[in-house]
């Protein structure tokens, strides 16, 4: 019987600074067989162990369509994320998972996709965006709307160009507050909606961002004609076990770690605390 709490060892290959408090860690499992056989869905998460400090759930930001490594983007907000931030390449960490349901992929083949991200919320979306772009012919038009507080808080900046240069992709970025160098859009992410030519027909929206952003985005999407089933989002909880046992992530009768973290707006509306 596999011990669901037993972490496998992964090694940090490289570390990229995204912002002042976000780093992207490229890792691979120490055991080549485990890395070889790694299979995950965009939207799933790993439980990351820093031995002696603890464990934290982190969404996988790399795409399953690219093999041989995986990436985690982590904001330095607490004990374990702080410890990870202090690490250097070739350090070992523990990894359990992947856990959770992940984004619908097969279900949205052939459709237009709208991604709405805020801050570090782009991390799980990036996995799906790259997955979709690696299989570009399987999907219709793609729109990516992304906002952060300041230009310094934008993550994955290097990839924006790559994304918008793909065929039939619209990419718009905004910040709440600009600075001297910023010449782009200013305003919350919903202010990008009128600038993008959004069709609700045959389109599915994926929304990830800080809790304060989500209700505003959903309200605007509903006004644009999206339905409870065509709005997909994720919920944040501190899943301690990842396997539906510890109880920390329960909302109503749903376990965010097993039934989520990806939910349709219809599912989210039906949840009672």
């Amino acid at each position, binding site marked *: 019987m596999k011990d669901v*709490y037993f972490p496998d060892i992964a090694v940090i290959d490289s570390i990229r600074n995204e912002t002042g408090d976000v780093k992207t860690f490229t890792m691979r499992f120490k055991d080549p067989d485990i890395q070889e056989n790694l299979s995950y869905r965009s939207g799933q998460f790993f439980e990351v162990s820093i*031995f002696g*400090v603890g*464990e934290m759930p982190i969404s996988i930001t790399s795409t399953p369509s690219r093999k041989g490594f995986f990436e985690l983007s982590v904001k330095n907000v607490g004990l374990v994320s702080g410890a990870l931030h202090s690490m250097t390449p070739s350090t070992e960490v*523990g990894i359990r998972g992947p856990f959770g349901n992940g984004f619908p992929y097969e279900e949205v083949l052939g459709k237009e996709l709208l991604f709405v991200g805020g801050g570090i919320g782009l991390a799980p979306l990036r996995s799906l965006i790259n997955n979709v772009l690696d299989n570009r012919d399987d999907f219709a038009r793609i729109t990516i709307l992304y906002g952060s507080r300041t230009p310094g808080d934008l993550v994955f900046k290097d990839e924006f160009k790559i994304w918008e240069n793909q065929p039939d992709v619209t990419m718009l970025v905004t910040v709440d507050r600009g600075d001297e160098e910023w010449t782009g859009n200013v305003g919350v992410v919903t202010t990008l909606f009128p600038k993008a030519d959004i069709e609700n027909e045959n389109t599915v929206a994926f929304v990830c961002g800080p809790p304060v952003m989500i209700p505003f985005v959903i309200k605007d999407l509903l006004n644009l004609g999206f339905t409870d089933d065509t709005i997909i989002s994720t919920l944040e*909880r501190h899943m301690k076990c990842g396997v539906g046992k510890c109880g920390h992530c329960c909302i109503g009768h749903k376990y965010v770690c*097993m039934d989520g973290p990806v939910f349709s707006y219809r599912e989210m509306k039906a949840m009672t605390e």
Partner: protein
Amino acid sequence: MSRYQEHLWMINGRDLFDLMEVFIKTREVIAPVRGHGGEVIFYPIESIEDVAWDWQYFNSVLPPKRFFLPQTEIMYEYRYDNGYKITPRYDDRVRMIFGIRPCDVNALIFLDRFFGGGSLSKKSPDEEPLFPDSHYIRRRANTFIIAFGCHQPGENCFCVCCDAGPFLEEDYDLQLTSMNGDYAVEVGSARGLKIIYGNEHFFRKASSSEVDELSRIKEDALNKFGDTCSYMSKAIRRITEGKVDDSLWEKLAERCLDCGGCSYVCPTCCCYNIVDISLDDKSGIRTRTWDSCAFSGFTRIAGGEILRSDKKDRLKRRFFHKLSYQYIEKNKRHGCVGCGRCITTCLADINMPLVVESIRKQKVIVQATKRVRHEAEI
């Protein structure tokens, strides 16, 4: 009657004593013993002389769940020596739990299903185990259960309302019921039967009058609960449909002390935290400790936000988890076995029968009526 029971067996009190001495030599025997304050607790025994017998107590102050889900357990050790080496810690001791009450056995069945993902459940053998918890399962699989049926409910007992007692129908190894100095022995599993046949000289087949006597004892025990009960079904329906007015939880929150005692004494509460402890700069342990949804920090997320910061939401959560139909469907029973320990423990008088009665009457009951009176002095 259990399908393993060919006959009702009997064992003499003295022989049971001797049989237990045999068991103590070959495995860890956990039994009810009297603590220094006079309360009964489950503890590993070295001699059968230490046991508090079934007629000397109603139930232990704490459920025996800690022998399967310890308050703190080491899940594994890590050591750094040119790379991390992780060694899991499993508890594969061969154990026997003697004198466990039917409510607590039903709680274990609940936990088996929850941690086993269905693998230990006899009621749903076709269920695929989903993320089975090997730490729990290994402890549980090596533990033989000798339960004591209850002649006499304690003053806070309401197992009868929860389909969890006062006697077991299945899911035990052996069930003993005292009867005029002897014990009636019911067999509930293949390994229970093996114990009988392996120690046959201690047992005899019950006479037909003894079989009748056991039925009479069981019927009498049910009658002793009286007609005041904790009527669960209305509470289950209202909680499931979200029809319980929030004012109930607000009123209860005014007196809840946030102590988590209800969860700790509850035989089915099993939420936990995972905590690392470093022993030196190269090694340490990963532990699992009991946690409770009553604690405000239970839903803290990265950045410090607490999602159920309001005490009323935490109370609502706990009773939703115990009683909502969605959980009943998942766990094949509601999350209460009627042991009454929350009644005994809660300093603020918030407990299952009180909440059920408050929902039923749609007003906050200050103190639930005592359901059962002692009919006989013990």
